[in-house]
């Protein structure tokens, strides 16, 4: 095995093993032929019967090559077979010749130091237990030996320190802090009052300036309005002047136009016959129609007379005609008869 991996190089050439580490083969019966042993059957070393486990003191000495057989039921059979085989083998094995008479073969240890071999390991139990803790006894009071003299003392009132004198710095600090705080507050108030005064001054100034600005604005507005009004007034005046001029011109023209109006009127009236002679008119109006009417009457009378005459003549002629016709017919009848 070692030779087969001799000179085997690691795949990436980093390291070379003279004997590559490999896991132990599991020596199972169903072993593949050696050509297929590239894939090693890894067996779990924990379950390998070849690894000695547990207490080594109670092991069999020089165990014979027993066939590893996982099946529990066949163990005894195998054992028996093994025993039988052992027996058979024992017979054919080359043995040491039998011991001579009076002698016995015994096994002897030949090492330097003799060792007692026995199955039974002598063991003894030994126990040990500490004692329970005892309470430590209290240390005795250390009273040093008395040495020196006894002396007594007493502090009277007012001897150690004077209260009034000692309290002064404390009082100073207290009062000082209080006064300081009060001063701070007063200063704050003053500052606030100052600010307020400043604000007031600003307000007054602002009002002032605002009033001034507004006044000026008003002034401007008034002035501009005044100007507007003046301009408008001026325009009015101009317009009036123009109108007056036009009126004068119109008046002159009409005067001139109307100057010879009256004669023209009279002329036209006369032409239209509005001025007439009353007598002439009267004659025309009254006399002539009457005359004409009278003439008409007379003429009518004549016409009527003529018509009557015509009628009479017509009647007579008709009558004569009829008579002549009767005569005619009579004569004709007469002639027929």
């Amino acid at each position, binding site marked *: 095995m070692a030779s087969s991996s001799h000179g085997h190089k690691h795949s990436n050439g980093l390291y070379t093993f003279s004997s590559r580490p490999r896991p132990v083969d599991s020596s199972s019966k169903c072993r593949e032929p050696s050509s297929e042993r590239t894939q090693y059957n890894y067996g779990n070393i924990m379950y390998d019967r070849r690894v000695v486990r547990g207490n080594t003191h109670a092991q069999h000495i020089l165990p014979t090559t027993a066939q590893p057989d996982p099946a529990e039921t066949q163990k005894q059979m195998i054992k028996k077979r093994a025993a039988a085989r052992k027996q058979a083998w024992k017979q054919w094995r080359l043995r040491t010749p039998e011991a001579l008479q009076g002698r016995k073969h015994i096994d002897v240890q030949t090492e330097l130091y003799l060792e007692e071999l026995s199955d039974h390991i002598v063991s003894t139990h030994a126990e040990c237990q500490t004692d329970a803790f005892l309470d430590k006894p209290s240390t005795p009071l250390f009273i040093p030996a008395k040495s020196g003299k006894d002396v007594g003392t007493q502090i009277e009132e007012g001897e150690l320190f004077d209260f009034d004198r000692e309290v002064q710095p404390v009082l100073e600090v207290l009062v000082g802090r209080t006064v300081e705080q009060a001063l701070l507050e007063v200063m704050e108030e003053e500052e606030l009052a100052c600010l307020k*005064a400043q604000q007031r001054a600003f307000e*007054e*100034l602002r*009002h*002032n300036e*605002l*009033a*001034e600005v*507004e*006044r000026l604005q*008003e*002034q401007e507005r*008034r002035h501009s309005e005044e100007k507007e009004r003046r301009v408008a007034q001026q325009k009015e005046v101009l317009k009036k002047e123009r109108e007056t001029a036009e009126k004068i011109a119109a008046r002159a023209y009409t005067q001139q136009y109307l100057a010879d109006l009256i004669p023209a009127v009279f002329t036209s009236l006369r032409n239209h016959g509005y001025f007439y002679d009353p007598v002439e008119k009267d004659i025309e109006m009254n006399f002539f129609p009457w005359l004409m009417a009278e003439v008409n009457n007379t003429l009518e009378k004549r016409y009527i007379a003529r018509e009557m005459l015509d009628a009479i003549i017509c009647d007579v002629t008709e009558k004569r005609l009829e008579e002549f016709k009767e005569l005619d017919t009579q004569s004709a009848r007469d002639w027929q008869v």
Partner: protein
Amino acid sequence: MDSTRAPVAFGRWDVPLLFGRLQQPEAAERLRSLASLCDLMRDPERLYRTVTGGFLEQLQDLLKDEDPSVRSKTCELLHLVTAHSIGRQAVLSSSLLPSLSQLLDDSSSSSRINALRALNCLALLPAGADALLCLVPKLMLKLQQQDGEDEDDGDDGDEEEVLLLSTISCCSRLDALPALASDGVSLLGRKLTRRSPEVRREAAASLMELSIPVEGKRQVCEGAVLPVLVGLLQDEDVDVRTNAAGVVMNVAIITAGKLRCLDLDVVPVLLDLLSKRLEEDERSKALVLYSLRALTALAEAPDGRRLLLQQLPLLARTTEARHPDIRRAAQTAVRVVTWTP
């Protein structure tokens, strides 16, 4: 140990512990913790820690407590918190404002006063005034209610009025329209005749703010407020006079105002004020300035100009005053008086 105050822990644990005590069901315990907190809050360091620790939200519940003394103490605490700018910002950013404004209708007067004090401090900040603008109608309503109460209400009623008026004037500084819309002019006009000078002063100050926009000026002219103001020009208190002069100055800018002021014969009064106050008193500087401006405005009307031309020497004397503002104002006045179209 003071029995009205809870014990205070040492160092950084003082404020959180006291705030933890505020959750206790007993009202007396809460009152004691609040009293201790009020004492502690005067220190700016602790205030900063309180504000950044976010403890103010717990006060929200306390504001709705049943016990009135607890409520008033909480308002006092808030008043102390708003004394510093960090506290103001914190109160503005938290949602404590609606609860505070609800407390204005509270039954106990001390909680009302403390709530008003806190709101007043807030209103001094422009951002605070901005946030309080929506409260202005409610404040005007409260003023009206105060009006209906008895005249001799005592100091409490006066203080409430003073606080209300000063809050309104701060808010109107930012934007006067809400106050004008809730009929501020007539209401404040009534307040001008109250007994206590503080009320008059604050009312006149509010009127001054209100008369800055044109609408306000017109309203002041139309109302019967001007005669009262002219009367106030001769009040004992310097501040009242100053504020009244300020209102007159604002009103005299519009033409109607000028005419009405001249009708009411305001010019001699103002001249009188000027001549009396030429000395260098800080408080009266504003009075002098306002009177000068009012006179300048009145001098733009022809009647006023005629009157003031006669008083030119007095104005010329004012130009030699020591304060530069007064000098400038006097010069402007002289210029306007001697202007010809």
